């Protein structure tokens, strides 16, 4: 058997990360910063001031054509007819069995749409879309010519405002405008994955490094390590952990982005049938009572039997305690329910907690 070796790709900001003394790791085929000054310090910087993230590994695919809305509706679980131009919406694409292929954000422009997907699923999703694409729809996978920089934190707007030519007050949560950042034209959107207020800047690949070098003067660079603790405290799902092709969106408590009555979409009938039969699992937040730390894959017990599994777990830098997102039987979703986490053969006490674990500065609605 021949062995295929692949060299990880580098973003246009790779040298910026080395300048900031990042520890680099291979993530979804990309050489990305895992941490700079330390996960706890970076996490705290985002919660209290502002942090800067390189998300250029993520996928961006533009869709255009007169039937683009209806076509995207036929692949996407959420209802894109509900958003206006200049707004974005979160949802999933599923296969015929109603299992999750990826979760994503779709942006509505005047004459096109932009699908933003996970790096690990980009090729799969672009291929899936191409397979379903009618001749009059045009797809343009812009992933490898688009850098993505996020600035997140309570001071994100104040810092970014000095470097953009639009009024950020005019950008609502999950809204976006086209504008210049440090003189560079791109898309500026009030979205993020940290629970804090903040923006994501879609920029031309090479030139983005200049924008990073300007913003990093005022915002701490943040690696994937703190990105994970921030999203976990915010209760956000991560594909490959809370979401996979083994489950429907309903199993991950994503019913709120699965609009079964909006019209037909791939996977809708299977999800509808599953819902009528009874959804088996849900996603909950767990907080440990002691100091031990729950980790992905640890079994969960209640009433003497296994009732689920940890999908992501970590030490929460804000709560200074172990927290987890977990897939459990639907009967155990109530806040306060006691569940035991099996850690190296011992059962440790935990409780179902309201999500998000930590309420950041994000201005929803």
């Amino acid at each position, binding site marked *: 058997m021949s062995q295929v070796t692949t060299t990880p790709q580098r973003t246009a900001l790779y040298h910026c990360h080395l300048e900031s003394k990042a*520890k680099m790791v291979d993530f979804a085929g990309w050489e990305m910063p*895992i*941490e700079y000054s*330390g*996960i*706890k310090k970076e996490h705290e910087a985002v919660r209290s001031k502002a942090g800067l993230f390189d998300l250029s590994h993520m996928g961006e695919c533009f869709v255009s054509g007169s039937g683009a809305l209806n076509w995207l509706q036929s692949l996407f679980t959420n209802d894109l007819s509900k958003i206006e131009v200049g707004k974005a919406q979160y949802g999933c694409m599923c296969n015929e069995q109603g299992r999750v292929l990826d979760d994503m954000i779709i942006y509505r422009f005047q004459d096109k749409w932009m699908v933003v997907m996970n790096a690990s699923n980009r090729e799969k999703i672009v291929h899936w879309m191409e397979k379903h694409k009618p001749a009059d729809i045009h797809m343009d996978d812009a992933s490898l010519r688009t850098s993505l920089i996020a600035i997140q934190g309570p001071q994100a707007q104040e810092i970014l405002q000095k470097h953009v030519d639009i009024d950020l007050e005019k950008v609502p949560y999950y809204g976006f405008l086209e504008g210049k950042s440090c003189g560079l034209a791109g898309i500026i959107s009030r979205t993020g994955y940290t629970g804090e207020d903040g923006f994501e800047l879609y920029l031309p690949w090479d030139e983005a490094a200049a924008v990073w070098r300007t913003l990093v003067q005022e915002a701490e660079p943040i690696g994937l*390590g703190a990105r*994970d*603790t921030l999203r976990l405290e915010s209760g956000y799902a991560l594909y490959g952990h809370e979401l996979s092709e083994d489950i429907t969106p309903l199993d991950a408590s994503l019913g709120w982005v699965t609009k079964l009555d909006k019209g037909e979409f791939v996977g809708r009938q299977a999800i509808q049938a599953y819902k009528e039969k009874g959804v088996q699992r849900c996603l909950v937040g767990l907080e440990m009572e*002691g*100091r*031990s*730390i729950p*980790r992905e894959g640890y079994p969960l017990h209640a009433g003497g039997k296994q009732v689920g599994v940890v999908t992501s777990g*970590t*030490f929460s*830098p804000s709560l200074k305690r*172990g927290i987890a997102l977990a897939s459990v039987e639907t009967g155990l979703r109530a806040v306060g329910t006691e569940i035991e986490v099996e850690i*190296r053969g011992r059962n440790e006490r935990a409780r179902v907690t309201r999500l998000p674990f930590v309420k950041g500065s994000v201005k929803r609605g």
Partner: protein
Amino acid sequence: MIPEELRYTEEHEWVRLQGDVAEIGITHFAQDQLGDIVFVELPAVGFKLQTGKRFGVVESVKTVSELYSPVDGEVVEINSVLSQDSDQFDPEAVNREPYGAGWMIKAKVADPGAVSKLLDAKGYASHTEGH
């Protein structure tokens, strides 16, 4: 960065031998690779250590790593700041002072002579080179 007077394993534990008692911890290199340490699980006093066998766990924010004993012996003391029941619980001591306040266990060793067969500072330095 690598104290001359200690002995080391390839798994990044260090040993400070005084008489027949070995103080054991993890190296500066190990704590730097792990990042912020947030939890340590250590055995109780009386636990029988076996060379190369697991005696505990150290967890950073992002990873869980096993600790392997550099010696045969019996645990006689554990560092109280690493005990999860302690009011002074301070696992970051391992990051701040891996060779000092961040020591993990003390053990009465079966064969003090065996410690000299572990890596010396020079041997450990070449083991971690290129990382």
